[in-house]
Structures are given as C-alpha cells and as structure tokens.
C-alpha cells in the first residue's frame, strides 16, 4: 500500500508535482499515467525517498520509505534501466545489491533465471540491449521479494514477447497480494495491464479510480460509416446537425445516432458498407483529460505556452475537425481531490 497526501514538489519555483493525494492498493496492478513531463518520475522518486517532498508526504506500508535502514525487502523498484554501471556484469550488479540488504546469494541466480538473463548474467551490462536492461531492472526489483513494487516505464524497449511476459508477471505479482505500481505515458500499454489508474497531467491529479470507471469517462462515442457515397452522406449529415470527419470513404460522425444515419442514408438511397457505434477508447479518454489539464495549466500559469501533450499517443489520433474538442464537462475527480486545486474541475477549465 502506497499513500500520498498532498504530495508537492517544487524545483526552485517550478512546480513538478502539485497536491497529489492517492492510494495504491495491494493485490492490484495500478497504472500511473501521464504525458511526458507530467511528474511521474518525480513522484516515484519521492515514494522511494530519493527526493524529499516540498510539502505533503508519501508512505509505503504506513511509513516513509526513507526511514528504513534497508529497502529491498520492502519496496522493489525499477526507476530507469540505465541506472547501472555498464562495466559490471548483471550478476555482480545484483550480488552487490543483494549483499547490501543481506539477501542470500542464491536469490541472485533465482531472479536472473526468472527474468531470462541466466545465460548472459556474466556479460558486461554495457553490451545489453534496452530490453535486457529492463529485464535486469525487473530482476533488481524482485530481489528482495518485496510486497510493494514500482516500475517506471518498464515496457520501453521490450519486444512483443517481453511485453507479454511483463504483463503476466505484473498480474502474478498482484495476484500474490503485492502492490504493483507501473508508470507509463502510453494509455495503450496500461489498457491490458492495469486494474486501477492514477492519471496526472502537469503535476496534478486528474483521476484515481478503477480502469473501468476511467474508461466510462470517455463519454464521446462516435459512429463510423463506410460508404461509396460518403461525400454525399457527409453533406446530408452535416445539414442534419452532425459533426463529420471524413477519411475518403470512411466517416466518423458525432451528434447523431447510428439509426438516424441509417434512416438518412435509406431516404437518399445511399449504400452503406459499414455502420458501427464506437465507444470512446481509453486512449481518447486519457487524451481528452490530459489535454484539458494542459490547457488549464497553461492558462493558470499565465504566459507559459501550452506544451503539446498528446504527441506519443497520437498514432491514430482523429483528424483535424471538431471531433477532437473535449466532450461534455467531465465530473471532477472523486474522493482525493483537494479543495485548492481548481484545475480538477475539468469542465470549467475549458
């Protein structure tokens, strides 16, 4: 269990994390999401006591982690796979860590086997690929068999087989009753991994809730149509008050329902190849929410220009039309929202 209360960190006058209050529960995989620069790594470092909060506090199992003489049996962490000396072998690296925490040597070979590095354990880490370094980082986190595990962007550099393995590992760790806290800037990575989500943007809490609840926030469903008469149909639908984004023969429509579209097409003898109502994806919910938080942050901070935020997510981002505009006002974050963060009322921020 990880509990953050009004956690705040400023570097100089620049706030990195503001007023974060959340709880990460045992027995679940909790995704920690936010665009690049949202303050995820800062938060993880504060959980580990590497950085001290400017204000507020964070505890692991009810105690500040920094107060523990040895850490590996309490929290296992992968912060950055590059946080190792390239000149050492994986085995030496893990053995030094294990020794400092009085963990028996046999455990080193155990975790090396578990992450699939047993065959290369004697080689210099400098020659490892990013994926292998991630595996080594995960091995370090597992070393002390801890009840709480933190992973910062663990899927970076892993091949599809590795990603599948990591997901299964996280699931197993959570099923064993452990607290598993995984950060990512990609919603798609969390969609099949996390039970709970904690979403931050520009250092502020946007959501802390089960994945399903978060998905339900993406209220903006749309209807996809494929038709040889797409052009004509688009005109008719627009006239009927719908917002239409056109991709050649494919249209993405909001503002009218699928049956209404079918009726209009029938009335005008337009052939439809495909008609489907699409629920808003998690990714879109995430984008809408973080985009809002950036918009608010930029205005709130005065002259500071808005940072492009959704870059890495925008692989299949919708086109340039009104479709991207954030939907109806999203309910303010339940529970942990502190009173003095007006930005949480996302609807007002627009």
């Amino acid at each position, binding site marked *: 269990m990880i509990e953050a209360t009004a956690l705040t960190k400023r570097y100089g006058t620049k706030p990195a994390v503001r007023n974060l209050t959340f709880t990460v529960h*045992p*027995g679940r995989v909790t995704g920690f999401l936010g665009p690049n620069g949202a303050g995820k790594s800062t938060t993880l*470092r504060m959980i*580990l*006591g*590497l*950085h*001290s909060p400017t204000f507020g506090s964070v505890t692991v199992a009810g105690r500040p*982690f*920094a*107060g*523990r*003489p*040895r*850490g*590996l*049996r309490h*929290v296992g*962490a992968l*912060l*950055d796979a*590059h*946080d*190792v*000396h*390239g*000149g*050492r*072998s994986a085995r*030496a*690296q893990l*053995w*030094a*860590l294990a*020794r*400092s*925490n*009085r963990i028996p040597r046999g455990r080193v070979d155990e975790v090396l086997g578990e992450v699939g590095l047993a065959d290369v354990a004697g080689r210099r880490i400098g020659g490892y690929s990013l994926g292998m370094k991630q595996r080594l980082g995960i091995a*370090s986190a597992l070393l*002390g*068999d801890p*009840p709480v595990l933190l992973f910062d962007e663990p899927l970076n550099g892993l091949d599809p087989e590795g990603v599948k393995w990591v997901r299964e590992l996280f699931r197993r760790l959570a*099923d*064993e*009753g*452990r607290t598993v806290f995984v950060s990512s800037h990609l919603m798609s990575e969390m969609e099949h991994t996390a039970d709970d989500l904690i979403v931050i943007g520009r250092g502020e809490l946007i959501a802390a809730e089960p994945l399903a609840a978060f998905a339900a926030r993406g209220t903006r469903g749309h209807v996809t149509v494929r038709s040889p008469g797409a052009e004509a149909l688009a005109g008719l639908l627009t006239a009927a008050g719908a917002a239409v984004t056109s991709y050649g023969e494919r249209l993405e429509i909001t503002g009218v329902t699928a049956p209404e579209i079918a009726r209009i097409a029938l009335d005008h003898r337009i052939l439809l190849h495909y008609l489907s109502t699409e629920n808003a994806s998690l990714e879109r919910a995430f984008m809408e929410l973080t985009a809002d938080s950036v918009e608010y942050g930029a205005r709130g901070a005065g002259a500071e220009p808005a940072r492009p935020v959704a870059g890495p997510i925008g692989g299949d981002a919708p086109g340039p039309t009104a479709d991207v505009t954030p939907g109806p006002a999203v309910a303010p974050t339940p529970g942990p929202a502190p009173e003095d963060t007006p930005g949480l009322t996302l609807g007002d921020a627009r």
Partner: protein
Amino acid sequence: MTTSATTATATTATATTATTATPPPPHAAALRTDEPRPRFRDLAAAEWIKIRSLRSLPIAYGTTALAVLAFNLGTAYDTYSHWTARTAADRARFVEDGIPLQHAFNANAALVLMLALGAIGAFAVVGEYSTGTIRTTFAAVPARGPVMAAKAVVLGALTTVYGLLLAAASFAGTQAILGARDAGVGLDHPGALRVLLASALLAPVSALAGFALGALIRHTATTMIATVTVLLFLSIALTDGRYWSALLGHTLPYQAWLRLAEPRYVPPEFGWSQGGAWTVYGVWGAVAAAVAVLAVRRRDQ
C-alpha cells in the same frame, strides 16, 4: 417468533465472524518477511563487490603504480649511473645527508600518486552519479549516510594497502639500486619508516579528498578540476614565504608530505612540526569521510 429471531441473530453473528476471518489475501503470509538486522559490514561488503567487479579499476591502480615506480626507480638509476661523476666528498656525504630517503619516494612520484588517487576516489562516487547507479544504490539502502561511510571505509582501506605496497616496493627497489653503489639504506635508517609511511598514506588521504569533493559536486568534470586544484595547485601557490600563505599551505596534504618526506628539515621563517603534518593527514581523512556522509543527507538524489 422469539426462536426464529434468535436464529436469525445467530446466523448474522456467524456470517460476521466468517467475513472477518477471511481477509488475508492469497499470499499475504508469504509476503511478510523476517528482516535480518541491518549490519554495516554488509554495506562494506557490497561496496567491495562493486569495486572488484569493475575491470577499469585494476587498470587505473596498475598504471598509477607503474608511473610512481618509474619516477622513483628511474631517479635512483640515474644516480647509480652518474655515480662516478660525483666527487669523493659528495659520495661520502650522500647517506649522511639523507639523499637515499629522497630517492625512496620523490616529489614527482608523490604528485602522480596524489592526482591519480584523487581521481580514483572521486570516481568512486561521481561514477555512481554519472551512471545513475546511485539511485539504485539508495533505493536499495535508504540509509544513505551509512552507504557513504561504507564507501569511505572500503576506499580508505584499499588505498592504504595499495599505498603501503607501493611505498614499500619503491623503497626496496630504490635502495637496492643505490645499494649497488653502497649508497642504499635500510628501514632501520633514521627517518626511513617516516618517509615510507608518509608516502603510503598519501594514497588514502588523496583518495578520500577526491571522494569528498565528488560527493559534494557530483559532476565528473567539475569534480576533477576541484580535486586537482585542492591537491596540486593550492599546494604550489601557497608558499612558505609569508605567514598567511605558509599557514594555509600547511593545511594541505602535499605540503604535509613534503614536510614528512624531507630527511633533514631546516625550518624556514614560518616552519612547522612533523606532528602538525601528521595531524593534517588525519584531519583530511576524517573530515573528507564526514563531508561525504553529510553531503548525501538532505539533498535530492
């Protein structure tokens, strides 16, 4: 009526008990670990594993040793080969003037040793900062002060042994070469042990100075500049000619070594004692270790 109510209550009670009894999540018991008592020697052992597992360190220590021996043995060989060019009076006073002890460990060798060991000491900590290893280290051991103390102890011990071996090898080698001209001395010669020990301990003192600067500065290049400045430039700039200059100069390890390695010290206007020089060694080592321990306490890592 009454009976059924009682039954209902009893059922509820049973249900409640059952619910309270269930909670422990699947493997909760397995997760509760009996943590062994934290020991300082585990931290020292871990640091020793780290040092041993870096191939670059034996190379750094090895090349430094070769350079130091080259300076010392080379100078001794020079004296040996030019021996016949000396006057008879010169040769007669060679041992009496303490020249063999100057050959045992000369100033060039001392400077090379200081700079190399200062850099090695600095790398013991900036190496961890530049690679990010320090975060892995401190996440595994949140007690940062003891980690730095363990590093200082291991570094100090290793460099002391290294310094002793190197000073002993230099002494033996140079005196053997001079001995071929009957100009060598043994360890029982007055001042010989002092020269040997002062040269040997220059290694840990320099390494710890670099280590402390590294812990304070944390950036590789800046740390190197600071180490060279403190160990070398200041020692050369602060001469014995003026009172304040001499006073400040006498707080530096290189000047302490000069004082201790001088076979026949003739005090200038602002002179100092051997005890003072030994104290400088001790204070530098202790203060450096303390600075490194304190440097990591409050700052973000």
